[in-house]
């Protein structure tokens, strides 16, 4: 449970309006928001994007502090991209240059745009993962992929794979910690030594882990077969996504706001 939280964004269990929305709506809206971020030009559209994000964060009822933890691990990537943007783009007034590097007014402007896009996108996807459990997200992906069945994409099998992967992440994590403890008990030291020796010490963890995973896979396959699983057969679904009135309302709002966004974009 803990482990899956660490790995997949950070789902915050709550009963806020945004938590209750259909995961398909949230997933599509999140994608759409990213598209809008790339369309945005000029202060008015950016202001609109910020307002939309503020609205989403408000509806999620999650403390701003938790959003900061979503951005924190990415701060180096953001910083590096911004630095490259400042140092290597050209155009406008040149403030400083050395070899290939130059700080220009256009570079600084562009860096700001990139910084803004980064933060908006990361925050929007954090809203998605914080309000939607991974399993519901997997359901949404499966549901949205369903039309691909016509193109002979094995949607059912892919969905089964995702759900089994999600199911076994905590189990495998537990096994890793058991193996690490067992190797430490035999005197393996994982904390010291050069990077190379430390990587080399991972081998006695990986080998039993892989053997264990294969054994598990074999057992699981037999258990699934015993319960009548046939990958080529159609199955009914126990967990179903139901579209409700609030979903329709939110969808209408998203469409209207998008229309307004493009209007503003056309007139600036």
């Amino acid at each position, binding site marked *: *449970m803990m*482990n899956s939280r660490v790995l997949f964004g950070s789902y915050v269990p709550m009963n806020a309006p945004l938590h209750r929305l259909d995961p398909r709506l949230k997933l599509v809206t999140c994608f759409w928001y990213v598209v809008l971020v790339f369309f945005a030009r000029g202060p008015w559209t950016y202001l609109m994007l910020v307002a939309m994000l503020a609205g989403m964060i408000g509806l999620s009822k999650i403390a701003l502090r938790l959003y900061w933890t979503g951005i924190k691990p990415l701060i180096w990537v953001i910083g590096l991209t911004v630095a490259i943007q400042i140092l290597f783009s050209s155009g406008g007034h040149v403030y400083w240059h050395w070899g290939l590097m130059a700080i220009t007014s256009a570079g600084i402007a562009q860096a700001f745009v990139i910084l803004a896009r980064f933060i908006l996108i990361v925050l929007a996807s954090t809203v998605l993962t914080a309000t939607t459990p991974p*399993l519901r997200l997997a359901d949404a992906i499966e549901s949205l992929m369903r039309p691909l069945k016509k193109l002979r994409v094995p949607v059912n099998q892919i969905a089964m794979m995702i*759900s*089994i992967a*999600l*199911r076994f992440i*905590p*189990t495998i994590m*537990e096994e890793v910690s058991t193996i690490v403890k067992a190797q430490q008990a035999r005197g393996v030291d994982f904390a010291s030594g050069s990077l190379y020796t430390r990587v080399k010490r991972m081998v006695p963890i990986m080998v039993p882990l892989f053997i264990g995973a294969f*054994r*598990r896979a074999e*057992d*699981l396959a*037999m*258990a*699934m*077969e*015993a*319960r*009548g*699983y*046939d990958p080529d*057969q*159609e*199955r*009914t*679904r*126990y*967990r*179903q996504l139901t579209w409700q009135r609030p979903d329709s309302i939110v969808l209408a709002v998203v469409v209207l706001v998008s229309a307004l966004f493009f209007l503003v974009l056309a007139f600036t």
Partner: protein
Amino acid sequence: MAMIEVNGATFTYPGNKTPALRDVSFEVQVGTWLAIVGHNGSGKSTLARLIDGLLPLGTGTITVDGLPVTVANLTAIHQRVAFVFQNPDNQFVGTTVADDVAFGLENQRLDRNEMQARVNQALKEVNMLEFADREPAQLSGGQKQRVALAGALALHPQVLIVDEATAMLDPEGKDQIMKLLTRLHNEGKLTILSITHDTREAALADQMIMIDGGQLVANGDPKKLLADKKLMEDHQLTPTFLVALKDELASQGVTGLDDVTTEDEMVTWIWQKLNSTK
């Protein structure tokens, strides 16, 4: 009526020279609890897998509910036979308890409402209803096995095969599963096959077969077979506490124990002795 008929079943694992199971024949009547005992590697699990069609039979025939176990009948066999395996983690397919119980029902393409009703009923039966939305990582081994049992019962099977399902559990978890099986058995129609090397577990059954070296070495009443000290020793099985105690008492010169066949009777017998010496 015989629910399961096994006739001359022989099976060799690919790449092996000696068969894992050789010319095994026996019958199980409807509603019977059969214990299949044998030490590790005796072939008892192989036998169970053959009955559910999870391994392809070499020679011989097996029928379940009159249906021969063949590739063509596999779906029908899986609908009649439910299987609970040894490892609690490796048979937990669903991401939550309810999802796992529903897994087999989804495969049978049941309607959502019917599924919900069966999931609830099965979870109630194993006393796990309040855990329906839990994830497997939050459950103990015994709870996971109870969920596995619920997943099997939700299928409304005619035969329930329990393959060393308590071997990885603590005594409490073991006890709960055994109580559940006893209750299911007492309810009637379900035919139960429990594979075990725990002779105490075997003592609960109506019929017992013993497998050693891939061959059937005994078939009969568990009370009689478990009391047969030579048979047990020959096939590397530890006698039950009851048998060991009777044996010890007999060697101390205590007589009159011949009619005692269960632990309860033993308790009564000892009480009587204690009271009469007062």
